[in-house]
């Protein structure tokens, strides 16, 4: 291959002597994010047991909740599998977030982050590469949940487009929460501490919500919390998108939650990362 100089274009200019591409800050961020995403996906691929366990938990939850509580749960005349699947999907992306926290704490502890920080790369890409890879994992886990759901009687009735939209909304929420977990991982630093702590916010947020049972049946004091927290907003919207109901208002509220969480925790995580 004979190296030839390429004129600068939108993707940067190649210096044929060094094999280096000159990219501006934003392009560098995009390319570095792609590289770091690839690195984290390779990790995921080499540690399939993480994905397997990330799948077993929701499958277990789908089966147990559906068959144990399904018969006695009053969800307004709805088929319980229909009610349950959107909830389990949201719960799964949140549980998956603990991997983001653990993974970052692990990287920080092993000094590999110091390597990245000593390179002339975009620092932000270390975090975006992590959150995007972890967000993409949600595609696999949620697809499996839908398949299992279809087996036990989940039947979205609002058309493929709206159901797909609900799927994307859950992924977007999953991506937003990875920033929360990234912040947690960077803040707590130790893998053990992160493992212990990451379930603390996940449990109350996913159970004190419309995930498994209607909020209306909860005691008043709990309802105040449950009805106004993000998990309920996302689950209700996803449910409405899959099975019909008022979508526009809830969707806007859900998107605001997603962007708000990403902005706040993206800022906090980045600040924490720069500190180190």
């Amino acid at each position, binding site marked *: 291959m004979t190296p030839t100089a390429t004129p600068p274009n939108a993707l940067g200019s190649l210096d044929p002597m060094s094999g280096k591409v000159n990219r501006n800050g934003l392009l560098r961020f995009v390319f570095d994010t792609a590289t770091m995403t690839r*690195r984290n996906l390779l*990790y995921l691929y080499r540690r399939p047991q993480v994905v397997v366990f990330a799948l077993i938990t929701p499958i277990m939850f789908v089966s147990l909740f559906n068959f144990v509580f399904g018969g006695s749960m009053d969800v307004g005349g709805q088929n319980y599998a229909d009610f349950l699947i959107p909830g389990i999907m949201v719960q799964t992306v949140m549980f998956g977030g603990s991997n983001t926290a653990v993974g970052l704490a692990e990287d920080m502890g*092993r000094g590999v982050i110091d390597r990245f920080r000593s390179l002339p790369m975009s620092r932000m890409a270390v975090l975006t590469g992590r959150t995007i890879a972890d967000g993409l994992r949600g595609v696999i886990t949620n697809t499996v949940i839908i398949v299992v759901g279809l087996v036990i009687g989940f039947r979205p009735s609002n058309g493929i487009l709206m159901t797909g939209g609900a799927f994307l909304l859950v992924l977007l929420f999953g991506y937003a929460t990875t920033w929360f977990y990234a912040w947690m991982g960077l803040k707590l630093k130790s893998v053990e501490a992160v493992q212990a702590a990451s379930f603390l916010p996940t449990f109350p947020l996913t159970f004190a919500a419309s995930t498994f049972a209607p909020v209306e049946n909860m005691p008043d004091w709990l309802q105040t919390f449950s009805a106004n927290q993000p998990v309920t907003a996302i689950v209700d919207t996803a449910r409405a998108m899959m099975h019909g109901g008022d979508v526009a208002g809830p969707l806007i509220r859900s998107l605001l939650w997603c962007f708000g969480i990403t902005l706040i925790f993206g800022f906090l995580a980045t600040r924490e990362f720069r500190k180190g």
Partner: protein
Amino acid sequence: METSGNGSDHEVAVEVNNIVKHFGDVKAVDGVSISVKQGEVFGLLGPNGAGKTTLVRIVATLSKPTSGVCLVGGIDTVANPMAVRSLIGLAGQAAAVDDLLTGRENLEIVGRLYQLTTAEARRRADDILERLSLTEAANRQVSTYSGGMRRRIDLGASLVGRPRILLLDEPTTGLDPRTRNELWSFIQELVDNGTTVLLTTQYLEEADELANRLAVIDHGNIIAEGTPDQLKEQLGGDVLMAAPADPDHLSVVAEVLAAVTGETPRIDAKRHSVTVPAADRIAALLEAGQEFQNRGVALRDLSISRPSLDDVFLSITGKSTEDGEDGEDQEVTQ
């Protein structure tokens, strides 16, 4: 002090000027100034917790000094860290490599982060693997590597960007002597090709082997600086070393050497030997030999040598480097 924008022809590769770094109340680095010339190997020698790693992290832009200025290739590490990062390569004790990726993947990812094209990243990775004798293990996950191989791939990762200045933080700590020697000759090769090296070590032997100039650092302060020979000069001449055939005779040997030279001998329990400064070298040697014969103490070794850097450290700080908890113990028993 000359300040140059791009620093490409700068004679001083690393200029550390009165750097202070506090972590809360702890003064990890307490006003250190060093100047590493282009093309030389500068060694920072000191026990664990002396502040070596903190200083290297500041030079590598990983940490900001509480006060003071650090210039790499004439560029301020705080004001323009990105420019500094394209000049340096960092490797060290942490072996900052990805376990679940293969050796080649590790190098290629670093290459991509240097904005190299896929082809160039691959070419450089192949080249480095070859030079570090890792070609056969290139496609294996790093988790299957031995300690020495991990250290090599870590060093390799620091070379991908073809750095002019290499920062090596205890590059051979915990390695067995043979692997250490291999790494030393590889580092020497890089130096021969013009790379400037700032090296930290707690091994006196390593500093002696690689460094042109040394700074001895303890409790965040430089306590001595010069060439290895100059530092040995500070001790004021040679040392007499005697090793008894029977380790139980160490104290008798120490007694004899003290009597002969009038100095305080140092007992090295691990090497079963005793050393003592001996200004009047030949007379001391003969006299000691006579005395050992009189007392019937059988010797394994009796010699005059230049002081080791360990002797230097002892004479400057009043304590041996081995007093602290460091990697030395492990290494000797291996």
